[in-house]
């Protein structure tokens, strides 16, 4: 299994474990650049290097953040990006632990970014997007790995 496929397989597992079981996955799409509305991202660096991200409508991101955190964000909508980034960090962390244990590949993570005004991070190679359908809407997850 390629690292990309491993990343996506673990993503689905972690979504089910920590957020909600996805209803389905869309086809993998190759993008030429990071979508403008993708401001939640994190880089994996080390023996395995990649850019990861997540994007979607604010309504779906808010529902995702509420499911993940078990918090009501009605009074604190500003926490939405931080909480989604928290999930991305958790998933990426578990992914690199798995890489370390199963393949002796050592990587670390950068601090996740969730500032809508920040410039998008660097991409390293081909940029893939996978849409994940939940009962509350669809989110897209990005991966661009250095090969």
């Amino acid at each position, binding site marked *: 299994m390629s690292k990309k496929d491993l990343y996506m397989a673990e993503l689905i597992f972690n979504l089910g474990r920590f957020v909600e079981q996805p209803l389905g996955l869309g086809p993998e799409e190759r993008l030429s650049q990071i979508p403008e509305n993708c401001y939640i991202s994190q880089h994996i660096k080390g023996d395995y290097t990649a850019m990861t991200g997540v994007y979607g409508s604010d309504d779906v991101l808010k529902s995702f953040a509420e499911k*993940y955190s078990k918090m009501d964000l009605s009074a604190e909508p500003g926490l939405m990006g931080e909480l989604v980034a928290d999930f991305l960090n958790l998933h*990426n*962390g578990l992914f*690199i*632990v798995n890489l*370390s244990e199963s393949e002796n590949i050592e990587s*670390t993570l*950068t*601090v996740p970014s969730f500032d809508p005004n920040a410039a998008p991070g660097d991409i390293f190679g081909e940029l893939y997007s996978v849409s994940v359908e939940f009962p509350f809407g669809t989110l897209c997850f990005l991966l661009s790995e250095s090969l």
Partner: protein
Amino acid sequence: MTNEELKILICDDSLLARKSLRDALKNAGCTEIKEVYDGQSAVDSYKEDKPDIVFLDIVMPVKDGITAAREICEFDENAYIIMVSSVGTQLHLREAIKAGAKDFLQKPPTPEQVKNVLSQVTGEER
């Protein structure tokens, strides 16, 4: 020493991680809990308050948790530091122990794991 008497420092840039740890500590009877958000604040706060236990994340802004652990242990070789991180790779484990951490918990830690840490410090049977 009881859990209620413990001075605890949580250092994590993740709001959710801090909340989850704080809830677990409060449920275990801890009352004196301070929270900071980056490694430099953890070092500064440790020097000021000398907490009994420090829960320290690794990937953080300003100063990472491994560097913060090293600096805290240079200040106090008896510091009781538990790394709590999503990046629990063998390399990070080795670095954390080398920096002076007593243990490493993979995120998200369970309330049981948190209670185990507390009992190791208080010496109380669980």
